[in-house]
């Protein structure tokens, strides 16, 4: 035990302590705070599940069920990087993988400079909590100029053989200049299990690098899921985030993207599906800090039962960020009378020569279109699925890894069949 403690470098200890002191000072957020107005996390605070570490019996099967053939697989189980469940046999040239614990001990290049450095944890109490527990996780380094064709798939699982647990998974991606890679992160747990996943992923996109990041959140329907994805994009860098959100009883997904170099481009798309009395909260923050950057944001929600959704899309265009072109769209379909959404675009524009548009639309399934499809012979369920597929299609089309797309789509439609009851 003593040896492990000694292996932790001073910088990491210092960052943990900063996270701990910040979380001690602010605690769990409350609905009195603007950013948490519609999302009460008291069920998370009250349940106080103990911290989990390492493997549990069902972990291997859960990983198998979501594995993407032909990818580099990185398994983070209860926050710990597990090389024995990972698939690292065919690591392409220019790709380096490090467990955070081992990497910190071995003083891996770039870790000290980057880890917990891409964003301000003061604005993110759950990220502060995650950082206070920072022990392991996985780091992905893509060398300058490397074009990685093989998808990189991070499988994040939480669970135990005993009761409900908490995990704080951590991921760091550093993409060198002119590099390219596609990274997917799947969050999964035992169906029906209660647990709390509190994830942080940091992505550093170098000059002219192109990084696609896919989030497949398919946690147990009884889990709590809080995740924070933070990216910084350097000049002419291209970053895209595609989120497919179908799991958890209470979900809060924060995405922060800082366009820190001229000519950077980002896409931030997502589709979420919820039923029952589940809550899906997405908060995005886009920081246009430099001139000539473009951003495209499209979120689509499908809500049944008494499900609730929150979408908050913040875009800051700083004084220097002239010629910014930003577009944000949020659309939601409510399939029942009791489902609700709070949608809030939040544009803060300080530059004067910019193009920023936003639009939000909430509606129901188009009954005339449903009748048209049915009048040609499709059942109501077939017609609905076709309509919902079309609705989500724009976001699903962003999935450029065929095996992953197949998996995400089949999960999506299995959940529709299970969850979303039609009004007759």
């Amino acid at each position, binding site marked *: 035990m003593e040896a492990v403690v000694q292996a932790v470098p001073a910088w990491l200890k210092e960052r943990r302590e900063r996270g701990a002191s910040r979380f001690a000072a602010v605690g769990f957020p409350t609905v009195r705070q603007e950013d948490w107005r519609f999302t009460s996390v008291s069920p998370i605070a009250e349940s106080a599940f103990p911290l989990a570490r390492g493997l549990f019996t069902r972990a291997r099967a859960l990983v198998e069920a979501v594995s993407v053939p032909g990818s580099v697989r990185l398994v983070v189980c209860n926050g710990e990087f597990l090389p024995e469940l990972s698939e690292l046999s065919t690591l392409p040239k220019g790709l380096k993988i490090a467990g955070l614990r081992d990497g910190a001990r071995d003083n891996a290049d770039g870790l000290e400079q980057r880890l917990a450095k891409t964003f301000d944890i003061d604005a993110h109490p759950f990220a502060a909590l995650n950082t206070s527990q920072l022990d392991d996780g996985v780091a992905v380094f893509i060398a300058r100029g490397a074009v990685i064709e093989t998808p990189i798939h991070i499988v994040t699982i939480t669970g135990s053989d005993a009761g409900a647990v908490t995990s704080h998974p951590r991921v760091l991606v550093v993409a060198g200049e002119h590099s390219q890679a596609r990274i997917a992160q799947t969050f999964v747990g035992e169906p029906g299990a209660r647990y709390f996943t509190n994830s942080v992923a940091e992505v550093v996109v170098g000059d002219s690098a192109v990084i696609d990041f896919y989030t497949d959140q398919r946690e147990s329907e009884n889990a709590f899921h809080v995740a924070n994805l933070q990216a910084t994009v350097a000049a002419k860098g291209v970053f895209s985030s595609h989120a497919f959100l179908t799991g958890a009883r209470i979900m809060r997904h924060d995405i922060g993207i800082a366009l820190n170099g001229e000519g950077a481009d980002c896409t931030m798309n997502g589709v979420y599906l919820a039923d029952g009395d589940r809550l899906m909260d997405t908060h995005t923050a886009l920081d246009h800090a430099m001139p000539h950057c473009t951003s495209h944001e499209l979120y689509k929600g499908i809500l049944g039962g008494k499900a609730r959704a929150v979408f908050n899309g913040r875009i800051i265009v700083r004084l220097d960020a002239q010629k910014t072109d930003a577009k944000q769209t949020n659309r939601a379909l409510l399939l029942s009378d009791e489902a609700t959404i709070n949608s809030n675009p939040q544009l803060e524009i300080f530059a004067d020569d910019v193009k920023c548009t936003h639009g939000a639309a909430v509606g129901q399934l*188009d*009954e*005339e*279109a449903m*009748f*048209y*499809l*049915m*009048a*040609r*012979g*499709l*059942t*109501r369920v*077939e*017609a609905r699925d*076709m*309509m919902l*597929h*079309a*609705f989500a*299609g*724009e976001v699903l089309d962003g999935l450029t890894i065929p095996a992953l797309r197949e998996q995400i789509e089949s999960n999506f439609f299995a959940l529709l069949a299970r969850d979303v009851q039609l009004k007759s």
Partner: protein
Amino acid sequence: MLEVRNLKVRVDDKEILRGVDLVVKAGEVHAMMGPNGSGKSTLARALAGHPGYEVTDGTAIYQGHDLLDMDPDERAREGVFMAFQYPVEIPGVNNAYFLKAALNARRKHQGLDELDAMDFMKVVKEKLKVLHIDDSMLQRSVNEGFSGGEKKRNEIFHMAVLEPTLAVLDETDSGLDIDALRVVADGVNAMRSPERSFVVVTHYQRLLNYIVPDYVHVLSDGRIVRSGGRELALELEEKGYGWVEPAAAGARK
């Protein structure tokens, strides 16, 4: 084929059809004419099972089955087809993908094997050729951004692929130029057969120059006020609907 008796239909608490009787035998083409607001389209939509059209009285027997008891999708799988007056634009739903699903739903219902993508395309290409329709329509979203004429041609194309037993064309001629009208008429004529019946709803006689009906009916104020052969349509064109309307008004009071 179809036997409609005393059909009364309400839309938004307003009675539009006030007792329609119509018998269509296999192989026949019936034209349903009438002025605006007479109930022609209501009859078409009620036969297709539109949920906004509430049947308050009467019966409709289709091939021995109670048509009114079936959901719209069951009617379609049983071979009832309605060409929409206003085909709905459905962004994101691929026209060919949808049509394949619709055809296979019908085939499955008939106990036939479902067609795979290749066999389906074979069927589709053949129909497109007969109808002189461009195949670019296939890969677009259903009706999205289609011109008025394209929408109507697409309806006829769907009909040709689905090969219904009873086809109801709801003002398919409205807004069409003469070339598009020909495409529609040729499509219908090519499909006429002793086993298939058509109800052609139209405001104008013009379409009936190309699709020659066996019977013509005139609807006015929710009832069929005149029935006859093809010559009735010509008479209507000459004299206008004013010719039948006073009689209808008189009959009501």
